[in-house]
């Protein structure tokens, strides 16, 4: 019976028919999606912290407003991604609990510190840029609610990317100190941004199945290559050097060659030992715990109001 169902399911996928919440789906498909969508939602929420770190120190009012609005967009993305995950039969509370207890992962990039204003630009350019590379194909992901959420997320992300790049462009035309700030920031964020595409295809445990299910459309290495190719010209316009001595055009491949990623660093951060892993989770847990009395009050109030209405009716 399940075999028949599974075949019908795979046929649908192969014909590019979207899977919707009420459709039958294999348990592992459901699990894989919950894992991926919730990781994505957590990344948005934890991702608010490194940029939120500069909200009170933005260099002028225009930038302050733009940064606040950007971080708010991320909260919004988190909200509809949690909602998309909930269509698969999990609750937001359970997912948040998994984040707080370290069971669920989020994008490792947010475990790096933002130590200068230039980081607000670099995060937009490189981090949001890498996220877009990863996410645009997800707009055609086989699961309907996720694909639809991603359409909106990607629109906003590409706005963020342009905004980040524009911050850097301004620095590149500024004083010596601003140019240094820019180069230093690119030095720190370049390699972690390349790591955002995940391990090489041969070391990526979930990739093959995700491709068959059309949750994923391109391999980690393919997307990483595309990203590098796109960044080189953008770096030239900014007048910054990408910190990779092996980066050079390969005529034969029609792509840029680039150096080996430090996979030890990658796994160190993924396993929870990056520069900010502890801080990030502690901050999220504190916000959640400090807010408990507020959430309880809202629930109690809503219950009282409902009872009052009942009495009137």
């Amino acid at each position, binding site marked *: 019976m399940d075999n028949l169902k599974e075949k019908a399911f795979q046929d649908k996928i192969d014909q590019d028919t979207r899977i919707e919440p009420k459709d039958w789906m294999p348990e592992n498909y459901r699990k894989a999606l919950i894992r991926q969508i919730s990781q994505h939602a957590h990344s948005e*929420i934890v991702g608010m912290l490194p940029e939120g770190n500069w909200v009170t120190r933005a260099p002028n009012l225009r930038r302050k407003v733009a940064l606040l609005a950007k971080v708010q967009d991320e*909260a919004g993305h988190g909200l509809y991604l949690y909602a998309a995950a909930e269509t698969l039969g999990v609750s937001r509370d359970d997912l948040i609990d998994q984040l707080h207890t370290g069971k669920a992962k989020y994008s490792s990039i947010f475990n790096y510190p933002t130590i200068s204003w230039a980081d607000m630009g670099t995060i937009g350019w490189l981090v949001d840029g890498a996220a877009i590379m990863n996410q645009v194909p997800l707009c055609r992901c086989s699961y309907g609610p996720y694909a639809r959420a991603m359409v909106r997320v990607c629109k906003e992300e590409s706005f963020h990317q342009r905004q980040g790049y524009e911050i850097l462009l301004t620095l590149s035309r500024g004083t010596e100190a601003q140019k240094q700030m820019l180069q230093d920031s690119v030095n720190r964020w370049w390699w972690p941004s390349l790591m955002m595409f995940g391990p090489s295809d041969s070391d990526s445990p979930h990739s093959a199945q995700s491709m068959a299910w059309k949750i994923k459309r391109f391999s980690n290495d393919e997307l990483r290559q595309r990203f590098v190719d796109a960044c080189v010209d953008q770096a030239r316009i900014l007048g910054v050097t990408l910190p990779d001595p092996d980066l050079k055009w390969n005529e034969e491949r029609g792509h840029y060659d680039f150096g080996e990623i430090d996979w030890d660093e990658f796994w160190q951060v993924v396993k929870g030992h990056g520069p900010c892993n502890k801080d990030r989770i502690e901050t999220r847990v504190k916000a959640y715990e400090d807010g408990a009395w*507020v959430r*309880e009050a809202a629930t109690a109030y809503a219950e009282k109001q409902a009872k009052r209405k009942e009495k009137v009716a």
Partner: protein
Amino acid sequence: MNKDLHNYIIQLGDNSLILGHRISEWCGHGPVLEQDIALTNIALDHVGQARMYYQLAATMEPGKTEDDYAYLRTVTEYKNLLLLEQENKDFGYTIARSFYYDQFHLLILRVLKSCGNKDLSEIAAQAYKEVSYHCRFSSDWVKRLGDGTEESHRRIQRALDEFFPYTAEFFAPSEADNYMAGKYGVDLSKLSSQWSVIVENIVREATLTMPTTPYPQLGGKQGRHSEKLGFILTELQYMQRTYPNSTW
């Protein structure tokens, strides 16, 4: 330049900026995702309003920009209300601070949007819509917290009590306020009783007790601030002070 009018506009801008800055500190730390988003929205409204006021002030003072007012003035040059620089502490204090101010802010904007100064009335008309929402947000939360759990009741009552002495400053006129009353009929003394009635009604509905005190806290409009404003400006102005004369 009309010094009184200019000071008045700066007073409005400073109120918006400092409260907006305080609320923006919540960004990423809210008690629940939806409230995080709502607080950020409100912070954005306030900072947006500050920009409109500072831009207007800059038209009266050749060579100045909005950022000069925000980033290059000292504590004693800031004219915001003392209440607005008080720390967020917890969600209850944040709500209490906004609740008292939002209701006052709406009353002021109602007068300003039909006052004879066209520039100010245009800004006020736009801000009025935003602040109507702020009032709904903060008063709904006063009710939820007041009539929620025992703990939330205790916490919001404490916050309302602690911040109440600062509300006297809303109605204690500065020279700029006196000028606005004489020239444009923006008369604070007429707003005081309206404010009390509105606030008291909501506090009562929230099953809370209206605080009273004979000891007001005054001075913000004259630049006599609490110790907290200096730290706000330290963060706010860090980049402009560290890298002067740069374009961002």
